[in-house]
């Protein structure tokens, strides 16, 4: 019997791999966002569909312009686009959406060194720049949920040209979002509608239930660290309960606080982005807690109606510090073997 003849390949240990990969993680995130995306299109119609599509295309374009063509394969640009689209008001002029998408990837991602480099979530960078550049549009491009004709026609504002005022006033379709209403002292939406998502709001942040389901799916698949949303939502719940207990007039109750605004989207899909969250498990708790506290403080005590975006940005700014505080300590040198 002779030895097997072969050209052996030299590789280094370990020769096994768990199998999880970055593109897979992106894919599962997209799957988790699918229900809420479809729901958004059903509720807000063509406006939502166009917003999401344009956001994704703009991100892909920027990725193609800034990185090697193969970088598109990892799916991260698509996910950024989807998240950005979901976080924008449905009737935002589409050229603004495109600017936001391009900026998100070109500046938010590639200026920081590409995949793995960003300090802030690229989609949030896109959104915050739109917020700064076009505050009026961002504050008013809301669409009434389940409006008649939503699937057959685009709101005029969506098609507005650059450097021109929208062809129709926002008021034609817009209504106050629940948080704006509460802040103004008016009655917000009923809690049930809030959780289901039959309210005005950003494309993909209205249905807390579907976002929760998607987030839990990711957590079960171990694609995200469950500690972050748990700490974040837990903190929001605890602080809201406290404030509501102190002054029920001015502060919403817990279920309203949890179900409104971009909280669920932010907690499950933005805050958990591996690149911007701490690397240690202990750090994840601190990070979630900090963002949760910031959300409540901003919502209740600042001029902003919606604090989630800024809370997330501040939270990720904390990440390097949290990483330093929670740096793992190597096991003490062991016994002589």
């Amino acid at each position: 019997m002779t030895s097997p003849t072969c050209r052996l390949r030299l590789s280094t240990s370990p020769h096994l791999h768990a199998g999880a990969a970055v593109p897979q993680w992106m894919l599962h995130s997209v799957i988790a966002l699918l229900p809420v995306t479809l729901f958004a299109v059903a509720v807000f119609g063509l406006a939502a569909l166009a917003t999401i599509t344009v956001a994704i295309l703009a991100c892909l374009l920027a990725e193609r312009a800034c990185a090697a063509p193969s970088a598109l394969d990892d799916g991260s640009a698509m996910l950024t686009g989807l998240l950005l689209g979901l976080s924008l008001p449905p009737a935002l002029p589409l050229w603004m959406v495109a600017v936001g998408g391009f900026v998100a990837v070109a500046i938010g991602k590639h200026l920081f060194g590409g995949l793995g480099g960003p300090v802030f979530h690229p989609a949030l960078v896109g959104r915050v720049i739109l917020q700064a550049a076009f505050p009026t549009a961002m504050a008013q491009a809301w669409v009434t949920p389940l409006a008649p004709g939503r699937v057959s026609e685009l709101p005029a504002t969506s098609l507005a040209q650059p450097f021109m005022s929208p062809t129709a006033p926002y008021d034609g379709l817009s209504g106050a979002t629940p948080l704006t209403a509460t802040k103004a002292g008016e009655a917000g939406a009923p809690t049930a509608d809030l959780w289901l998502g039959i309210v005005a709001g950003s494309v993909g942040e209205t249905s807390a239930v579907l976002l929760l389901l998607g987030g839990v799916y990711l957590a079960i698949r171990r694609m995200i660290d469950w500690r972050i949303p748990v700490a974040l939502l837990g903190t929001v719940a605890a602080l809201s309960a406290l404030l509501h207990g102190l002054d029920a007039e001015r502060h919403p109750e817990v279920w309203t606080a949890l179900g409104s605004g971009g909280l669920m989207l932010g907690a499950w899909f933005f805050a958990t982005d591996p690149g911007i969250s701490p690397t240690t498990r202990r750090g994840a708790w601190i990070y979630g807690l900090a963002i949760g506290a910031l959300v409540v403080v901003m919502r209740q005590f600042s001029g902003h109606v919606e604090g989630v975006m800024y809370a997330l940005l501040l939270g990720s700014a904390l990440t390097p510090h949290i990483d330093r505080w929670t740096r793992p300590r190597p096991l003490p040198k062991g016994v002589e073997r």
Partner: protein
Amino acid sequence: MFRHRTSFSGGIKLAMPDRIAADAVVRQMPFAPLLRLPLRQHAGAAAVAVVRAGEEVLRGQLLARAEDETAVPLHAPATGRVVRIGEQSDGAGGTVGVIELAPLPGDTQEQARERTFDADRLDADELLAAIREAGIIGLGGERGPTHQRLQRARKRGVAVLVINGIEGEPGFTRVPALLARHGSDVISGARFLGKVLGSQDAVLAVEKPDANSASAMLADSENHDRPVLAVLRPRYPQGAAELLVRTLARRPVEGIPAFNAEKAMVFSLATVAEIGRLLSHGLTMTDQLITLAGDGLRDTGNYRVPLGTPVGFALAQAGAHSELDRVLDGGPMRGHALGHLDRPITKGATGFVAMVANEQASLPEPMACIRCGECVAACPLQLHPAELGLLARRGEIQAMVEDWHLERCFECGCCAYVCPSHIPLVQMFRAAKKQSRRAKALAAGEEPA
């Protein structure tokens, strides 16, 4: 009945193949036409040949004598003729002496008893000498001369003997084989070691899949001072001595008094069984129990292989696929890939994995680190592989060593195993360690190795 505990954070759950009864089977490997025996098969000095080319030797007979405290003697693995005494590459840029032996076909291969003694009557010093004369080295991952470790341990004082019955790598099945076939050797080996060390307690640590065979083995023993059993939840790399001692010392399992980690000493189950087997019968080390595994073999399992058998011959006997892609010396997590198959199987071998080319075998190109922290959570020593990886990429070796404890890494592979970006972390750390040692040697004015 058993508590399952681990007290190291991190590590990974590896998909272990189901343990079946066949795992306890040990097949005898026939003699290869030519056995090659390096004179140094462990860390330490080489042995010095005492035979000449052309001489006929008996199985078990002394071939090379240990002249140095760090050396162990080498015995003939087969009755046969010494064909050649020469040099071969040691794989690290140097050469090492080698004896080539052609077994005599048709011989009974009865092992010549070098010594006759009643091991149970030997005192500690005599046992220590007998262990050295039998040519025993560590058979777990540690491949140093066993007598040397024992001498150091005696100076230090050891209270607890820990027998490491944890399968080091996925796919390896030496533990069930040793428990089923060598139960009495394990018990007597533990007794001899206890005597040498003057230790009071012995603990046998196994993982859940081997719990039943371990307790059956202990129950069979008529001896009263048999080891206490500790059953642990399977988790890689629990078998690393450092982690195992922590686990056992920190959170005592039922029946074992808590002990001071400093006062424990770990021996692999294979070493303990070998000590029992050889000393009880006055034999010398002539063969090795190894696992042959991998999708490139038809007859995977445990084999008793004569020392000096070429890896290729052993794989062929186990029904190797004609087109192997990779052959690993050791398991899939820590083993290293062999460049050719003429290498002989030596004393420290634990097993080989033969793999055919398939999709799983080739990993995708590494991507950028996304700082997901999976590696941090997986590191059993609580190092920071992600940070180490970023520093390695920037060439900041000094920071890796001084600030991030690179030298503690024992290359278990957990970080690279979980990395979703497929970054070859272990490879980078290995290179960085080498570079750091070079730099240190240069700074000390030495010729870099």
